């Protein structure tokens, strides 16, 4: 099947299917409302207690921003990345695992619609989560957002990109271990080492260079810029890197759909 057929541009799109999938995904989040909302509130508060108070008493400010306020964008990114990946990967892995995916595959939906529904659902959830964290953080530290448009842009772009990434992992994974593997071994370390809790300018020379190979650095830096107008790397580069990663994910997804990789074989 070529891509044009895969997207089925000739026939009318099946918006109802997109909506049906999206709704189920959102309903799942509200069913597990405790897990979805309470837990990020608690963990964010804990970060403030542990990092904000313990470390914050030594590092009072970075780049002229109070330490507590400095870590907020990084905290949001941390949750945004991990939650986008785990939401989206689980959403597509679970029906694969229990076999109920037969229905999705037999339905008159295009791959593009499947993506929009699943990635849209996962991204919506993690954006809501990011906003909950932001609201919680506002209780602890004074916040300001200098570039609200770019703040939202980075939030949405990151949520979508990493939901797409999670979707790929969910399709690739054959076991629950594999499902956890990438987030656990790659994404979490990269996020922690990506400048969530410090400015990369605080690192010694060689580490600073190594850090520049970490894509998460660009996300966090750009996002923090939208809050405080201060960045570790230039905003254009941040945006560029995010878009590159998005493009890579789209290319992989397109390939998966062309070949039916691990879905229709």
């Amino acid at each position, binding site marked *: 099947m070529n891509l044009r057929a895969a997207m089925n541009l000739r*026939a009318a799109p099946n918006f109802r299917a997109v909506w*049906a999938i999206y709704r189920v995904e959102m309903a799942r989040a509200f069913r597990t409302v405790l897990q979805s909302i309470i837990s990020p509130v608690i963990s964010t508060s804990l970060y403030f207690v542990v990092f904000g108070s313990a470390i914050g008493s030594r590092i009072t400010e970075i780049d002229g921003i109070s330490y507590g306020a400095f870590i907020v964008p990084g905290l949001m990114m941390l949750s945004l990345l991990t939650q986008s990946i785990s939401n989206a990967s689980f959403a597509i892995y679970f029906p694969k695992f229990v*076999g109920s995916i037969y229905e999705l595959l037999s339905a008159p939906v295009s791959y593009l619609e499947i993506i929009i529904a699943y990635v849209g659902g996962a991204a919506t959830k993690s954006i809501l989560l990011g906003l909950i964290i932001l609201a919680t953080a506002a209780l602890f530290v004074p916040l300001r957002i200098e570039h609200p448009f770019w703040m939202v842009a980075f939030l949405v772009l990151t949520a979508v990109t990493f939901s797409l990434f999670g979707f790929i992992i969910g399709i690739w994974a054959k076991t629950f271990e594999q499902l956890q593997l990438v987030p656990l071994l790659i994404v979490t370390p990269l996020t922690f080492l990506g400048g969530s809790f410090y400015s990369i300018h605080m690192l010694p020379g060689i580490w600073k260079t190594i850090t520049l190979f970490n894509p998460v650095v660009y996300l966090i830096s750009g996002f923090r810029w939208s809050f405080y107008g201060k960045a570790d790397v230039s905003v254009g580069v941040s945006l560029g890197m995010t878009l590159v990663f998005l493009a890579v994910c789209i290319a992989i997804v397109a390939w998966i759909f062309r070949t039916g990789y691990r879905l229709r074989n």
Partner: protein
Amino acid sequence: MPSILSISGVSKTYATGFTALKQVNLDIQRGEIFALLGPNGAGKTTLISIVCGIVNRSSGTVTVDGHDIGRDYRAARSLIGLVPQELTIDAFETVWATVNYSRGLFGKPANPAFVEKVLRDLSLWDKKDAKAITLSGGMKRRLMIAKALSHEPRILFLDEPTAGVDVELRQDMWAMVRRLREDGVTIILTTHYIEEAEAMADRVGVINRGEIILVEGKAELMRKLGRKQMTLELRAPLDSVPDGLSHYALELAPDGNQLTYTYDNQSDRPGVASLIRDLEAAGVQFRDLDTKNSSLEEIFVNLLRQEP
């Protein structure tokens, strides 16, 4: 009348290198009930999965009501409802939510009244708010049927619908299948219970090792390949079959009280009437007689035995 489903030259080789289907050709008539029979691993589920878009075919073409399943997959799939062999439902959804989801997935506008009717017909209405995980196996099976019917398909695939289902539910299902057929729905079912095919199907296809070895109207099949047996209860035991009757190849029971005559429907062996005349002429008297058709099951087993 053009067929509603046309499968031509379809082959499937799985990633493991195993060839599950070899050049399958099959045409399904509009509105018929077609039973696909075959032993375990014959390729029944693979064939259904290809038509429904779950598995990619290696070669061949399939059209559903004239729509190619590749190029025109939306139109093709909209017409098809599938009840798969395995019980695979999202256990955490309620019955009501999951059936409505299916309807939405197939692009149909919400229609609570219709969904209610489907659930009532399948005796699931009082379970509508129950989570799937709390249902019994038979109820889950019915739920999967409800999902398949939720979008008003014109072709319904039932992949072993009655496996592990009790007699009552099985009869309910047969009744449902008949109702659907009256509404003009084409039904393709696979089953291991041959009496089911015998009771339900208009036509029967037999698949073995990925090849369709026979497609035939059920009645013709029974007529062509079926055999009849007539058993006579004799008034007085015989020591041996009288000479004048030897060309009938009768079997005499060991106790001499029963004669059995086996004949194919199509063979040119003499008919029952002449046998009875000849018996009378030979002075053999009988108390009772009984005739029996061989079942589809016997035909099926014989067919597979003939396969190399």
